[in-house]
């Protein structure tokens, strides 16, 4: 199969230049690479710009209601474990109106792939601030600046017991593709936060991480088993909750922490780098944390037989 096999006949209605296009393209590439027949894929979304996604993929798909893609997909996966079920959600859909299901999906660890399109704004309703918008965001619904503290979805996921968290960005096609492959590989709930540019209502929100001038110093791409290196000869060390930038030339590369996707304590700090108390550090991209944990599922089912039914009905 090729990526083309996953292109549906629907006309794509995102604004030209929207970050969603890049994600759609990589998802189509990745689906073609995986060894899964087309009819075994199901994409479930909620409401929002990104939630139109299933219409544009030639697989089974449900464009459901606001915030409930996670719970609907849970029912779908539990009832038909053979399906590869992907959830498409956004910062408003998944974290605001669907926040409760988000938390409970993470703790249950149902075998779902969750792509969280984070553009830090409400696009479909035309430009209100979202739960991930930075404090003081000027938007249609916050003309004097928002007073809501933003939430960090990966931190919430980790605290809820997520077994896989990763972050990528729409403009880094290769990295995005690698992360999607990792997501596909994971058994359990795999959460991939995708920074996605909404150039209509929140243009440039992630320029810091993609701009040639700033990118190197403001991002760090993690790889399991590799030292945490970024920028011009810099690295990161985390020791006893204290984060430090290493000058590799002075201190040597061996001072940098080796990334270990199984280390939850470190993951707890990594997801917060680049914001709040850790604003001076680069933003972390890549697979941050993954563990093998029991997956929420049911024993294999057979239909209820006549004699089973008879026994149940006559039991007094």
């Amino acid at each position, binding site marked *: 199969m090729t990526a083309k096999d996953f292109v549906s006949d629907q006309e794509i209605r995102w604004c030209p230049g929207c970050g969603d296009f890049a994600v759609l393209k990589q998802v189509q590439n990745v689906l073609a690479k995986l060894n899964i027949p087309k009819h075994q894929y199901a994409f479930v979304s909620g409401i929002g710009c990104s939630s139109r996604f299933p219409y544009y993929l030639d697989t089974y798909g449900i464009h459901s209601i606001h915030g409930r893609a996670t719970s609907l997909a849970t029912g779908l996966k539990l009832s038909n474990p053979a399906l590869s079920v992907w959830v498409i959600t956004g910062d408003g859909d998944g974290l605001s109106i669907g926040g409760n299901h988000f938390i409970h999906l993470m703790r249950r660890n149902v075998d779902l792939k969750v792509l969280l399109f984070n553009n830090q704004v409400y696009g479909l309703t035309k430009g209100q601030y979202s739960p991930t918008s930075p404090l003081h965001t000027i938007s249609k619904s916050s003309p004097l600046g928002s007073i809501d503290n933003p939430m960090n979805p990966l931190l919430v996921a980790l605290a809820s017991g997520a077994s896989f968290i990763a972050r990528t960005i729409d403009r880094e096609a290769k990295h995005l593709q690698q992360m999607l492959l990792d997501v596909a590989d994971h058994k359990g709930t795999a959460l991939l936060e995708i920074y996605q540019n909404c150039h209509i209502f929140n243009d440039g929100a992630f320029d810091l991480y993609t701009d040639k001038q700033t990118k190197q110093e403001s991002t760090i791409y993690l790889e399991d088993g590799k030292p945490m290196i970024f920028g011009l000869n810099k690295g990161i060390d985390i020791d006893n909750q204290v984060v430090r930038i290493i000058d590799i030339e002075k201190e040597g590369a061996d001072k940098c922490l080796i990334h270990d996707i199984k280390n939850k304590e470190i993951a707890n700090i990594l997801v917060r780098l680049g914001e709040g108390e850790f604003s001076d550090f680069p933003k972390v991209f890549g697979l941050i944390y993954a563990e093998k944990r029991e997956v929420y599922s049911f024993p294999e089912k057979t*239909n209820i037989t006549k004699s089973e039914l008879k026994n149940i009905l006559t039991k007094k």
Partner: protein
Amino acid sequence: MVESIIKKEVVVKIAGDSGDGIQLIGGQFTGSTYEVGNDLATFPDFPAEIRAPQGTQAGVSGFQIHFGSVEIETAGDDCDVLVALNAAALKINLKSLKPGGILIVDTNGFDSKNLKLAGYGTENPLDSIDRANYQFYGIAISDQTKRSVEQCAIDPKEKDRCKNMYILGVLYWLYERNMDSTIAFLNAKFGKQAGILEANVLALKAGYYFGETTEIFKARYEVKEAHLAKGDYRNITGNQAISLGLIAASHQLQKPLFFATYPITPASDILHELAKYKEIGVETVQAEDEIAAATMAIGAVFGGNLGVTCTSGPGMDLKAESISLAVSMEIPLVVIDVQRAGPSTGMPTKTEQADLMMAMYGRHGECPLPIIAAKSPSNCFEATLKACEIAFNFNTPVILLSDGYIANGSEPWLIPNVDEIDMRDTESKRANLKTFERDENMVRPYIPFGIAGKEYRIGGLEKDFVTGGISYDAQNHEKMILTREAKVNAVANFCNPLSIELGSENDEIAVIGWGSTYGSIRAAVKKLREEGHSVAHIHFTQLHPFPANTEKILKSFKKIIVPEMNRGQLVKLIREQFLIDAISYSKVQGYPSNNRKS
């Protein structure tokens, strides 16, 4: 020897503090009544609080059972026997004891503290009981229980708890019952706790022998076997019957049962019951909230399962948007609403049938769906099968209404022969249709995910009539609204025609009900007919759409009266759809209608 009197029917009410184990002995007495072969109906009535303030009226828990050798329609109104374990229980229930009735009280529950908590002040009501009007038996049940279990090595609190068994023993003696099945029950329940088991058995026997040896009772009573239709029976509550109905439907449809819910009174017992059947493939999910439960069930429908979600009124409010999605996607989803008294939290353990308008209209946009209502505990089985049958033959969500009264109430149920369970499945007729094509009833095929070559996308946006793609076209939208409506209306011809329960079209007046008022209305109409009145009883189980012959039947009566436990909801539908000047008789007191007043 005391004499033995044969009775045709008896109503017994046991009332005490909610910590006294009233529901437990109610269940045991019901079991033994069932064993004797009586027809019966029960009504457990308990506070919403788990441990309501002890000794107060708010904390009173009651269990009423009506049993007989004749047909029993309801749990009864006034009782022949009242057992009151404390002053508050007497205060609440004495008014419902029939003149000449037997009143048994635990005199230990009438100390000054109890009297004060019950609101009696300093005066002991037992001093002023009209002993000419009631057969009064004041027994120091708590003291006697303690004495009977003196030898057991358990703490005093546990000893005190055995008083429910003592009173059960007294009742068993009074109604000439055998203690074996309760002793077996106690063995199963307390088998590992020898001391508690011994004490409970001793207390039960002590109560029984108290009746036998003291001869304080004037008589014993025997209620002979009822002549129920031949067959194998079991006693069943409405919630159990719904659970079994779902399992039977799962078997009939050859689709695994996926049941997602959030705990809520009075529906939770359906979850408890179904959760027992995991090993035969029943999937139950205790979701994080009502919306998750509804959407998980929707997901399961796409996974090829019988997807069911279940709740009570407050949960229905929350599920509205999900149900609306299921209407728009035209998928078979079964939604069960075990109604309770509202609005808001209302009275969780009290019954009401006030969610009909919500089931009809409680969603945004034009959002019709079929509605089924169960009329009695045992009828919940059939009603559940019906709801599932409609859902899968019309690929539509269906709302099944039950309520707190039939959910917890019980009656004998004629166990159906598995080979005779009848459930149509017309899906095969749509096998050749494309995803968005329709049959003559406007029904689209049901295509679960995972079938090669059938990949499709669907959602809550309006769909093009032909292609199923997103459409914002105004003409198309109207066409789709009319199409979904026509599909639901076609159910009118699919279901059984409306029949008249009692009487005929030649009668002058029809009393029309729906849901759990069935027994009360039947009893009342029966009585009126015996008195020579020209009254018929009609009872709807299919509330939307009404059966095709409804208008013809209703219009044959001069007068139509619609008693409901709401402010007149069915009556609105009848008036609206048939322009009939039906009269509403409304009662919303959190209790089943009683026929004294109807």
